[in-house]
């Protein structure tokens, strides 16, 4: 685009060398065209990832809050229609009826009331809902789990997240091999010492830790961050590197140019990185379609959002430790070929009923809930202490005792995980506990309460400790994969 602008300007100069006014007009028009195509740098984007389509929309600001048009948001996912009647806005998604009232927070979805965190806005027949309402509103409308990272404005509908692992391959010249669970095609930009991969259309999510460090002088680290509807992986290098794609776009290898060209001659796409400035930007193509994935495990980082959980120290909240550990556990499970999904992958508020509902609708073979405590040492594993309650009615399970039929499998899972933790010399105890939503989950369900091994609370968010525990838990689950799959049918 920049070259096009330059050529336009040069042609203008040659055609009317002394005609300054023509140059000014051309310049103004070119600048306007650039701004029109590129969009405002302050524009807030929200990206939606689903099995049906991946797309981006623009958020608008009303009353100092971010809003999104509900009809535009859900239009690519199903059949939508809306009807305005005075202050009332009736919205239909497939067979689900909703009704909103302008200036009110109370909405009606699927026949039940729901409170939005801020007023509904109706503008010329366009219904706007606050972004902060999506975590609670969309599961009711869509009838399935969603994950909304509000700070990065990334919305995941169902189990669509693309996970990745990154490790240094030290055979021959050192290279960083990144394996993704689905094909990816990021926009790659380089500058001295850095290679940026921007994922705008792909639901790539954090590998567990925001920063990855490698035992490599050439490529010492990489970082993951999300913002404005996109994810970015930034690879730091001390030598010029190139990125090459293989395995149908599922693997990106970052290595010095000679290594890449010698070892990946058969790879069709090779993008240069770390050349002398100025930076090069390679335009990305449309992301490949993402096939529906079967979820083996649902990992629930307890607490979150307004609910901080226990104050583990002056600065450390339980909700942050559980999220970090949940991400580490997901990475360990993915590394073992077990597909895993987080119920929350950001600092969002979910009720216990929502968590149970999402876990039950996922069809996962195991539900793992994460808690953290500053008291005691090592790990406590809990299965449900099912309360005294009413009976099931035909195919409908009693909500409070839905876990009853799965308790045996849950206890097998707890014993397997405990065994792996003991193998790693990590203190572990196993109990039953009246801990919701374990009793509401209709699959094998396990809660893990992690506490520091040496009484030092800061150990709870130490990557080494997290990784050690997560590795043992993932191995314990892997050991009984067949039993869990059989038990969930």
């Amino acid at each position: 685009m920049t070259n096009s602008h330059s050529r336009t300007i040069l042609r203008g100069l040659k055609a009317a060398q002394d005609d300054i006014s023509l140059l000014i007009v051309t310049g103004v028009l070119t600048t306007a065209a650039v701004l029109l195509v590129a969009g405002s740098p302050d524009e807030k984007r929200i990206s939606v990832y689903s099995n049906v389509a991946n797309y981006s929309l623009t958020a608008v600001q009303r009353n100092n809050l971010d809003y999104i048009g509900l009809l535009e948001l859900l239009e690519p996912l199903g059949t939508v229609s809306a009807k305005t009647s005075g202050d009332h806005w009736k919205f239909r998604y497939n067979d689900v009826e909703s009704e909103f009232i302008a200036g009110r927070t109370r909405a009606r979805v699927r026949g039940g009331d729901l409170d939005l965190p801020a007023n509904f806005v109706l503008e010329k027949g366009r219904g706007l809902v606050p972004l902060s309402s999506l975590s609670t509103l969309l599961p009711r409308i869509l009838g399935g789990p969603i994950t909304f990272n509000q700070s990065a404005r990334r919305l995941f509908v169902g189990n669509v997240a693309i996970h990745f692992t990154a490790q240094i391959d030290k055979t021959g010249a050192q290279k960083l091999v990144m394996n993704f669970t689905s094909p990816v095609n990021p926009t790659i930009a380089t500058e001295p010492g850095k290679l940026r991969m921007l994922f705008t259309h792909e639901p790539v999510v954090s590998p567990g830790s925001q920063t990855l460090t490698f035992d490599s002088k050439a490529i010492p680290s990489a970082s993951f961050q999300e913002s404005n509807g996109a994810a970015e992986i930034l690879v730091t290098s001390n030598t010029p590197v190139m990125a090459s794609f293989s395995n149908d776009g599922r693997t990106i290898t970052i290595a010095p140019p000679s290594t890449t060209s010698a070892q990946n001659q058969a790879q069709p796409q090779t993008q240069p990185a770390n050349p002398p400035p100025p930076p090069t930007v390679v335009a990305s193509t449309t992301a490949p379609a993402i096939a529906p994935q079967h979820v083996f495990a649902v990992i629930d980082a307890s607490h979150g959002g307004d609910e901080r959980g226990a104050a583990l120290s002056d600065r450390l909240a339980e909700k942050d430790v559980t999220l970090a550990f949940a991400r580490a556990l997901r990475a360990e499970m993915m590394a073992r070929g077990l597909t895993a999904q987080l119920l929350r992958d950001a600092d969002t508020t979910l009720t216990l009923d929502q968590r149970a509902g999402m876990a039950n609708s996922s069809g996962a073979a195991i539900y793992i809930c994460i808690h953290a405590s500053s008291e005691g040492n090592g790990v406590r594993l809990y299965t449900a202490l099912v309360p005294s309650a009413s009976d099931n009615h035909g195919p409908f399970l009693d909500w409070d005792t839905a876990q009853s039929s799965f308790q045996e499998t849950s206890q097998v899972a707890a014993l397997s995980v405990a065994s792996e933790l003991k193998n790693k010399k990590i203190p572990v105890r196993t109990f039953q506990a009246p801990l919701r939503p374990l009793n509401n989950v209709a699959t094998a369900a396990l809660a893990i309460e992690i506490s520091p091994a040496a009484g030092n609370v800061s150990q709870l968010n130490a990557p080494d400790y997290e990784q050690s525990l997560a590795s043992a838990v993932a191995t314990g689950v892997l050991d009984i994969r067949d039993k869990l799959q059989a038990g969930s049918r």
Partner: protein
Amino acid sequence: MIPRHLIIAVAVMIAVALGMSFYAWRIRGRVNRAEGPANTQPVAPPAAGPSEQVTLYVAYDDAQVLRPRAVRIPLPAGRQERAEELLQALVDLYLDKSSPHVLGPDSEIRGVYLVDPGLAVIDLNAAFANGHRSGVLIEELTMASLVGSLSANIPGISRIKILVDGKERDTLAGHVDLTNFYDVAAVNQLVAQLQNAL
């Protein structure tokens, strides 16, 4: 001139009244002799009574276990009053300086109600729940200590519900569920698990 039959009737009524007064005076004298002198002792407080040995399941934070402890406490005769005194003794133990399982200041048992055959309701005060430390095991130790101690000493309880200030509350301190009824048999299994140290 007053008729003669009227004079006779009044005389008979006076004689009957005098006879009944004498009879009442005799009866009262017998009752006073049977009761003896009036009891001027103050009414005994509810907790007063013969000391009895009971088993409390006491939580120990250091070892993260429950341990049975035999204690002698005065207990009243009524079943419900006994239940209240028993749990308050447990809470007093936790509020002591040498407590092995610290509760928040001013924690109290507001009441224990045996409302239905087999059902007991424990009503904690708000300070109990608001001042409780947050964590799955730490909350579970408190719950199991209350339920285990109550069911071990008050026979016939099969279900227990815990309220806070007379109202239902979601959790004790963010983890242990208080919305459901506890099955005493299941909790007693948990009490047994919690007695095993690491």
